[in-house]
């Protein structure tokens, strides 16, 4: 009798294949059979895909571990219950609200610049610009997002700050929140404009045509029909831009100064959470010190803030999306 190919079960590889058969079924009907090497590839790709989950776990673990260490030394109440921050002094104060306030102040200024400009750009690109003009303008706007942030920092400190000083007088410091906020706003314009424009474009043509048929002008159509219809996408783009502004580091480190205070005056120097992390990283703080551990507590606060904003943006898109056929 001619030698037969061994039954799959007789070999180790066949046994493994048998074991994995249930787990590695093709996901789509009509998909081809999988060989052993195909299964191996499938498994390897699966592991690679789960790596992103491990990155998240890694970030959370790293932050939580040192944060718990920090709260063993400094009570919870001193961190969240105070507005005094003087981490680098002996007997330092660790009231994180001073840093959160600086972050929010600069993010609000950035949004005050980016939201009007970005929305106008989005409405222009989506409702007014000819396709050819749009094909040129959109990539050019997105170039703004591709410029390294340290370059924006250079402009904030050496170009915008002198202009602000020439407007408001010499008693304004070189380092001020306004310069950082304005330049940060310019940086996040493409986030607002690009995402909003996608949302505006997704509004079906029939809505616009219905509006025109009722005698509305182009502006009325854009502002009263298209914009409300794309509301969820526009809001999500603004939230995402805000989250980017909160997490941005180099502009505020270079231009906003290092003055963690609870100030409302945008011409004063402030310090954000990210800038504080950089400041502490630049010094050679020993890894056992409180100054090192507080870095992670602040980063944890930052991480939770940005994560909440991202999740909120996703929720807004899901919850308030208008479905059109």
């Amino acid at each position: 009798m001619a030698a037969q190919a061994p039954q799959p079960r007789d070999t180790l590889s066949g046994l493994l294949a048998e074991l994995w058969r249930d787990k590695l079924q093709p996901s789509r009907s009509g998909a081809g059979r999988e060989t052993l090497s195909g299964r191996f590839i499938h498994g390897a790709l699966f592991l690679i895909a789960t790596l992103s989950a491990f990155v998240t776990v890694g970030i959370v673990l790293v932050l939580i571990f040192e944060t718990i260490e920090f709260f063993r030394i400094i009570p919870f109440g001193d961190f969240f219950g105070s507005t005094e921050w003087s981490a680098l002094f002996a007997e330092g104060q660790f009231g994180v609200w001073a840093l959160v306030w600086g972050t929010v102040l600069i993010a609000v200024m950035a949004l005050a610049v980016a939201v009007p400009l970005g929305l106008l750009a989005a409405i222009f690109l989506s409702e007014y610009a000819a396709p050819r003009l749009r094909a040129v303008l959109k990539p050019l706007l997105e170039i703004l997002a591709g410029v390294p942030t340290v370059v924006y920092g250079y402009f904030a400190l050496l170009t915008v700050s002198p202009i602000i000083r020439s407007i408001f007088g010499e008693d304004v410091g070189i380092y001020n929140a306004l310069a950082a906020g304005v330049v940060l706003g310019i940086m996040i314009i493409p986030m607002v404009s690009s995402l909003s424009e996608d949302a505006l474009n997704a509004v079906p043509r029939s809505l616009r045509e219905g509006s025109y048929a009722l005698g509305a002008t182009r502006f009325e159509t854009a502002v009263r029909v298209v914009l409300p219809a794309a509301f969820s996408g526009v809001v999500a783009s603004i939230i995402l831009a805000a989250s980017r502004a909160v997490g941005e580091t180099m502009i505020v480190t270079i231009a906003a100064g290092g003055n963690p205070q609870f100030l409302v005056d945008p011409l004063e120097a402030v310090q954000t959470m990210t800038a504080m992390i950089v400041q502490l990283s630049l010094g050679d703080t020993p890894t056992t010190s409180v100054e090192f551990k507080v870095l992670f507590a602040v980063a944890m606060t930052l991480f939770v803030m940005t994560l909440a904003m991202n999740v909120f943006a996703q929720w807004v898109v899901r919850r308030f999306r208008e479905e059109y056929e």
Partner: protein
Amino acid sequence: MSFTTRGTAPAFRPRLALRRLFSSTFLLGCFIAICVGVVLLGALVIEVVVDGGSVPFAPPSAASLPDGMGWLAWAFPIAVLTPFLLPRLAHRRSELAPPAFAALCVLSALPAAIFGHLIYVGFEDAYYVKTGGHIFDLLSEATAWQTFRIVLVGLLLPGGLLAVAWRGARRLRSPSLVWPAVILAAWGFYLFLEPGFLSSPPSQSPDRIGIFPALVGTLYMMTITAAAAFPLGIGAAIYLEEYARRNWFSRFIQVNIANLAGVPSIVYGLLGLQLFVRVLEFDRSVLAGALTMALLVMPIIIVSAQESLRAVPPSMREAAYAVGATRWQVIRHHVLPYAFGGMLTGNILAMSRAIGETAPLIAMGALTFIAFLPDTPTDDFTVLPIQIFNWVTRPQSAFHEVAASTILILLLILLLMNSAAIIMRHRSRTEW
């Protein structure tokens, strides 16, 4: 809106001719490119030129070319570029016979060379205008003619590069303008620099400063980052698009990737500090920095690779399955080749994000004085953005000038990468 009557020869109508000229797509692109060029780079270039009283920056003749040959600095690139521009303006290139085209090239190069020389002379004048160093002072104290020529020089490079981006956006297939523009840009940047700026180590005195270790460190780190991030990112995208069932797990991974893309970069720096620098004991090495960057850009790579995989039509896969291909054969031989261009574009864009990131490296403690080159992946290193940060934060204005010219180098690298990505995207784009 045509006033031409049938049967009569069209008369020359200046207004129509003008409108045609301005509606000619190239002029439009140039105009927009120049506008953006003013905002982005013009001020920077002028600042380098005007503040360049100290040694690192000198006019082209003193920098890189022999005495008396300085005019070549500007005449050469313009002579290279003009033959490509003029026929395009006339919309006639395809209709001209090759000898006529060659003649037109030579003829147009001559005035261009003269024009370039004039610009160069203006450039040299401007260099000796010492104004106390502010761009507005320059504009008020220099003559109108000087200002015009300075601005012209400042616009040449960004204009050329953005014309490349514009062509990409217009989905033109022939990239014949691209390479002259690249040559032009590289030549211009080279001339802005003192000899040795690219090839010297950093120094405590701004007039002997160089960025060689930072340049090498950037390239080194980018290579390792790419080697780590591409396979992982593309592999994850293939799994999610081609293998994963639509269940809670793949949804979880998707949401997770979206959230990872929103994590501030400095948090990645802290992850790298704890994971790579301390636990795995890579120290503050190229390897630790590169792996941190790889984690940072992985979400971008995954998302863009997923998009290009999704763009491959299902009929392509079904046809391959129908002739008996296994799943991996379908992916390897049919899906990947078609999605490859889009993936590469996403990868380049991700790399251009990584090349400019500063915060994670600073959080890892990579801001140190490095005057040597990294030999092995475990050596200390420095990169361009860190050097820029270092110099910007110093009080002496001489260091600010050094920072400005390092920024020019960094932006040049970025623009080249982005142009390459755009060109590649439009070349690989296929309509189904």
